[in-house]
């Protein structure tokens, strides 16, 4: 499919970039919040124990801090 790119002014292009960055920042913030919530859960602690065990089986020792 052939498309014709509409010419945009410098200001319009900058507005597009600003919108993209704003959207990405909001998404990053959401991801960080999701992680912060997850680390408080018992499932997360269980996962760490399991990872520690699996790593130890391969000789990688992760200290319990």
């Amino acid at each position, binding site marked *: 499919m052939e498309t014709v790119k509409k010419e945009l002014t410098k200001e319009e292009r*900058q507005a597009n970039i600003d919108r993209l960055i704003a959207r990405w920042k909001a998404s990053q913030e959401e991801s960080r919040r999701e992680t912060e919530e997850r680390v408080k859960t018992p499932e997360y602690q269980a996962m760490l124990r*399991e990872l520690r065990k*699996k*790593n130890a089986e391969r000789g990688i020792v992760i200290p319990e801090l």
Partner: protein
Amino acid sequence: MQKEELSSQNYNFSFWGGVNNTYSFQTENGIVYEVKLKPTPYFFDNPLYAENTYELSIIVADNPTGRSPIFDTKVSRTIAAIFEDFYLSSDEHLLIYICESADKRQNIRKTKFDRWFEHFAPMDYNKYDGGIQDSTGEIYPVSLILKDKNPHKAAIIVAFIDIIAGYNQDK
């Protein structure tokens, strides 16, 4: 051979799944990372590859050392192994990585990310780099990663250049 080599030199990781395809792993220093591959359909306009576009986030979930994480080759190899796992479901997946700049350390992050990429470069991945500048003058390094065999590779690269130039359309 490559996979075998990776599996003996990376950390074990867990896949949480979910909409954001979250993976977790912990380093020898006790640092916990989360790697998220979040669907980002708004990035590209073309539906042929927009639906296969994911935003890569590498988040430090816990850092008991209290210091900035040092470069660790096992981290690189773990991220490479996670990528391998993720790309197993489709060669058409695309990753977009934008470096966080809130603390003005985006160039350090970019260098670190480039070093990580060196570890999966041999596995048929291509990386294209650029930078986007917001109206305050802040520059955000941005990378596109795709498999060499992606059938839409040429069109994706052109679209990526357009986005950097501000020709993305709001969706």
